[in-house]
C-alpha cells in the first residue's frame, strides 16, 4: 500500500501497534508475524490475508496493510472496502506473481449479468 493511502491514520505507528497486539510484549520484534498476536488481531490478520486482500502465500507474515486494516477495524475507523477490493483486483491482475482474487464475487457478477454459463467448469 502506498503512503498516500494512509491519509487519516497518521497516528498509527505500526511497530507500537504490533507490540500492543502481541501475546508477549517483552519479546523483541524481529519481524511482524501473525502467530505472535492476541486472538482478535490474529483472526483479523488471517481474514485479511485470506479473504479481504487475499494472496497466494505468506499468510503468516504481516505486511504493512495487514497492520493498518486491523488497526482501523479495532479502532472502529470505517474503511472503504469497495475501493480496497477494486485496487487489489487491479494489482493482482497487473503483477504476474499474484493469483486472481475474489473468485466468488466475480462468479456472482457473471451470474448477475446473465452471462451464459452452460457447460462451463465450476
Amino acid at each position: 500500500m502506498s503512503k498516500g493511502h494512509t491519509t487519516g491514520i497518521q497516528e498509527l505507528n505500526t511497530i507500537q501497534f504490533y507490540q500492543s497486539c502481541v501475546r508477549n510484549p517483552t519479546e523483541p520484534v524481529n519481524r511482524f508475524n501473525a502467530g505472535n498476536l492476541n486472538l482478535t488481531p490474529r483472526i483479523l490478520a488471517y481474514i485479511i490475508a485470506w479473504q479481504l486482500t487475499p494472496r497466494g502465500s505468506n499468510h503468516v507474515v504481516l505486511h504493512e496493510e495487514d497492520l493498518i486494516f486491523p488497526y482501523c477495524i479495532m479502532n472502529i475507523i470505517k474503511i472503504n472496502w469497495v475501493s480496497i477490493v477494486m485496487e487489489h483486483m487491479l494489482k493482482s491482475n497487473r503483477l504476474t506473481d499474484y493469483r486472481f482474487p475474489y473468485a466468488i464475487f466475480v462468479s456472482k457478477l457473471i451470474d448477475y449479468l446473465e452471462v451464459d454459463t452452460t457447460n462451463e467448469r465450476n
Partner: protein
Amino acid sequence: MASSPHKKRRSREQHNNNQGILERWFAGDVEAMTTFMHDMSIKQINVPKVLEFSWLKSGNLAEPRVVLKHQRLKHFLKITRNVYPDLVKVFYTNLTQDGRKLVSHVKGVKITVTTEVWKKCCWDQILKTESEQRTHDWNPGT
C-alpha cells in the same frame, strides 16, 4: 518415434476445440486471446475462503464478530457459491480501469463494476447511508 495418424487427428481436433472455446470466451478478440494464452492462463486463482460467523459466535469470539459487523463485512465474508474458474480468468484478462469503475468483458457481455453493482451483487449492506457512519471515514486513494 513418429506419432500415429490417430494421435495427430486427435491433437488437431483438440486444438480446434480449444480455439473454439477461446473464441466463445473472448467473443473473437484475438489480442485478448493471445494475452490469455501467454500470460493469464498460467496464473492461478486464489482458493476462495468463507468465514462462518456462527463459529465466531459459538467460540465466544464476540470482539472480532462485532468489529467485522461494524465494517459491514459480514455478507462479503460469509458469501459462498459455485465459482467458474475459467470465466474468472477471462474476466481478469479483459479487466481495465475506467475512472473509478472497473470494466471487463466475458463472452461478449460487458461487466462494469461500480459501487452500485457491489451493493446489489455482493456487498448489500456496506454503504447503506452516509449518516449511519458513526466515526470518521478512511477512504484510501480518494
